[in-house]
């Protein structure tokens, strides 16, 4: 019977399109006031992200990270900004963080003489187990491919990996269930890592 089951339309199709709609709604709002404001706010966001990025390492202040994060959230959920703009904000900051991370890696590589791919890697070890080394430029390139296949999934990776958002936060921001986000995340990760592999 397995073949039959595979042949029937999956039961969560509706969730799936709901998720894609929610993610892509963010794109449709690109011309909103907030987006324009943040376009010019980019250099500042970049500074903040620098601090935050280092905060993910060892030797930075927890408190400053907390302040930055706080400000993000406060800005995003404040009464002055409409709900649509909050989606925009979250998505926007992860997009900004993505380009910052990639820029940083490129800058570092350009700085090092004879710079090669092995010089800067990203340590994404989250906990126990061996540190998985994923090259950030490779992820970035694969994300481009992923966006062509499935733009919603690419955006999800952006939010989770580059934006550092949790599944709960993403679900809240997009207005979909955590379960949906979790399922889509697994798909995105399997697809992305498969694209990264040769």
């Amino acid at each position, binding site marked *: 019977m397995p073949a039959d089951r595979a042949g029937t339309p999956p039961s969560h199709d509706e969730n799936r399109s709901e998720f894609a709609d929610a993610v892509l709604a963010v794109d449709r709002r690109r011309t909103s006031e907030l987006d324009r404001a943040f376009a010019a706010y980019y250099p500042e966001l970049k500074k903040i992200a620098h601090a935050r990025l280092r905060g993910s390492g060892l030797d930075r*202040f927890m408190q400053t990270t907390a302040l930055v994060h706080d400000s993000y959230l406060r800005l995003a959920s404040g009464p002055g900004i409409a709900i649509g703009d909050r989606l925009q904000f979250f998505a926007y900051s992860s997009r900004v963080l993505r380009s910052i991370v990639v820029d940083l890696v490129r800058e570092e590589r350009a700085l090092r003489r004879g710079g090669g791919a092995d010089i800067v890697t990203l340590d994404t*070890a989250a906990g126990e187990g061996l540190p998985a080394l994923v090259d950030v430029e490779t992820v970035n390139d694969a994300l481009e491919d992923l966006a062509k296949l499935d733009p919603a999934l690419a955006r999800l990776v952006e939010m989770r990996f580059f934006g550092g958002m949790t599944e709960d936060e993403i679900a809240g921001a997009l207005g979909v269930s955590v379960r949906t986000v979790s399922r889509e995340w697994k798909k995105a990760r*399997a697809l992305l890592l498969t694209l990264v592999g040769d």
Partner: protein
Amino acid sequence: MKLSRELWLQIEPLLGVALDMEAGARAAWLAGVEASHPDAAPVLRRMLETHQRAEQSRELETVPRLAPFPGWSSAHAAGAMIGPFELVRPLGHGGMGEVWLARQADGRVARDVALKLPAIHQHGEVWRERFRRERDILAKLEHPHIARLYDAGVTGAGQPWLAMEFVEGLSLSAQVASRPHSIAERLALFRQVLAAVAHAHRHLVVHRDLKPANILLDASGQVKLLDFGIARMVDEGADASGDLTRLGGRVMTLRYAAPEQVAAGTITTATDVYALGVILHELLTGLAPYRAVREGKPLTDVMLLQEEIAVPSTLAIPKPLARRISGDLDAILLKAMRRDPAARYASIEQLDDDILAHVQRRPVKARAGTWRYLAGRFAVRHKLPLATAVAVVVTLLAGLVMVERERRVAVAEKARAERHFASVRKLANTFILEVNAKIEKLPASLAAREMLISTSLEYLDALAREPGRDPALLLEIASAYRSIGNIQGDPRGANRGNLPAAAANFEKSANLLVELERLKPGDIATAREHWRTSYALAGAYYQVLDARWRAEFRRAIVLAERIAAAPGASVDDQSLALFTRGREAHTIAISTGRTAATQAVLAGAIELLERLRLQAPPEAAVHVRLASLYGNAGVGLAGPGDSPPRMPEAMAMFEKSVALAREVLAEAPGDAQRQGLMRLNVLVLARNLAARGDLERANGLMGESLALVEKSVARDPDDVTMAVHRLEILVGAADVANRLRDRARAMRLSREVLASAEKLPKETAPLRDVRIQVTEAKVILGYALVATAEAGANDRERRLAMLVEARSLFADVSRFLEDVRAEPSLGAVPEYKLREFAQARERLDKAFVRLAAR
């Protein structure tokens, strides 16, 4: 690998199904898929394998972090000059930068120094200042076991340098490895290190980067500690520059880093205690406390945070050594390396006491909890009846432990607080000053700015509640309150139209500034800030009909005069007092009518400002103030007062105000304040032209400023000042249209005023300016309605409807006039406006009676 979209669309639902099922069921299911979807199955299989692996390693789930990069090549060359030093040869390098042997060659002193060149570049006076301050603290650190910091600076190119005592010697670990040392010898060396660190801690300097490489032994066997406090100095620089080149440095020190330093970046004296524990561990056992290091693997922060440190004597070391270490030294090491900073030795002295106690065979405090141990020691030394001794000692120790715990917490808290304080404060100020200024010019940024500043202010406020009143911090907080006030209701800039809230924040700022003036009497920076706050508060009070505006103006004048009289006052400073006096006179004139005195003050201020204007260098602020005062003087001359209006003079003032405003606006077309000045001056000129019958020019000017304001309103709908400005211009344009007998346009424009006023935030409606505009619009609309009805182009029913509407508008105007009479605070509404309204009412009354009777 590459994947086509068609194939992915096939795979996607299958992947969803597979992910939903138990991992064990997938193999059988995949076999089925191979039959039904031969193209998709292989890729799907790979994806599921990838999924399994990723579930284990949790790949992609954390924010990326840059790993260290290997390889090094010097950025400097021998013979190069850095500040007053000539580079001789490199001594070493690390993640933090390079160290060179260098010769001081400026003729003052001839000496060799170790010149540290951090791999950061930093420009900007703020950072240099901080660097200098830090240097001054460290240069005072004089101790036989601490390598002196002679001097530090930043080259013109932004390269920071630190000149330190050049110590020739071996590192502690190399020295110990070079020949056998007894435990007693090792402990004696280590106690020299402790003496140095304790000295620094007493001077509130934490090393932050203690490691064997930073501990040298010179030829005479004396310990010299390098790099005291340098990590902090460099950190601050790297932090301020947003420069990441130092990232490689952390792994080098991870081996000696304390868990809280790794997890949260918290640096306290307890951080140094931990590092010393690791160093002593290595010194005594020859092994690192972490398994990964012992096994030659890279140490990660995760391992550091999770590994339970083994009892040192249980490690793979020779039996006699293990016996020697077990007991006291085990306990001392473990206490120094406790994960919880508060559970470690509270101070370096206590660590040293315990080592000394061990050497002298007294009880070691690290083993305080084990009464059998204490009993044993006492029994050995005093031969007291055991039971008594144990009881006494346990009681004594319980009290001691309590006191110690409190002290320990206090010490740790202080250092931690200092760290938080500095970093939180810096970030909060960045938000308030830099980010706010950057986004200020953006459209629709008010809500974001208010959020930004109020969040930052919360943090600053929290800092201010900590003990010790730091004047610089108070000034920052006062300025932050004023910034919020400005956003909520700057009487002259973009704002959210909540003047009562703005006034409350200006008051908070003013209260802090009063306190600051007590702390630092005569400080000019405080006075400047206080003037800004006071001037803004006077304006806010005036708008919300609070009679305190007069007292606040007086205070602003006193402050401005103090600033102008201070030595070294700039042209800008000097213009401040004149301007404030002029503004006060103007505000009095428009609220209670012109007097000879108000006009004399304005004329005097203008004359002196004109003179200042001729002084080099020309100050834009002076021009802006002058343009503003010309307009104000004109309003006074044209308005009601204790003598008849002097229109020709007034018109000349208006023309000048517009010409000057055009000039300053041309210099900075994007400047919101100058745009506002321009709009206001044009509006006043146009209204007066209209009143004098030059309707054509008035109409042209009105059209110009209406177009300008519509554009600005569209840019930021939240900006209430702009919206109120628009109301004023619409009223002016409606007035001109009415005078041109274009009743349809007059009606359309005044209806627009009423509709727009409805849309303002509710806090805005009671504002003086808004109420006046609305009332004026009602007068114009009512007048236009009556005139249209009288013209008789419409049928009777239409005309009656117009009259009914005019009557209702008229009733509103009357009610406003009643309010003015009933509320003394509204008495400050200009007298001539009241008279205009009264006249309008009479005319409307007559017209109504006439038409109704027809």
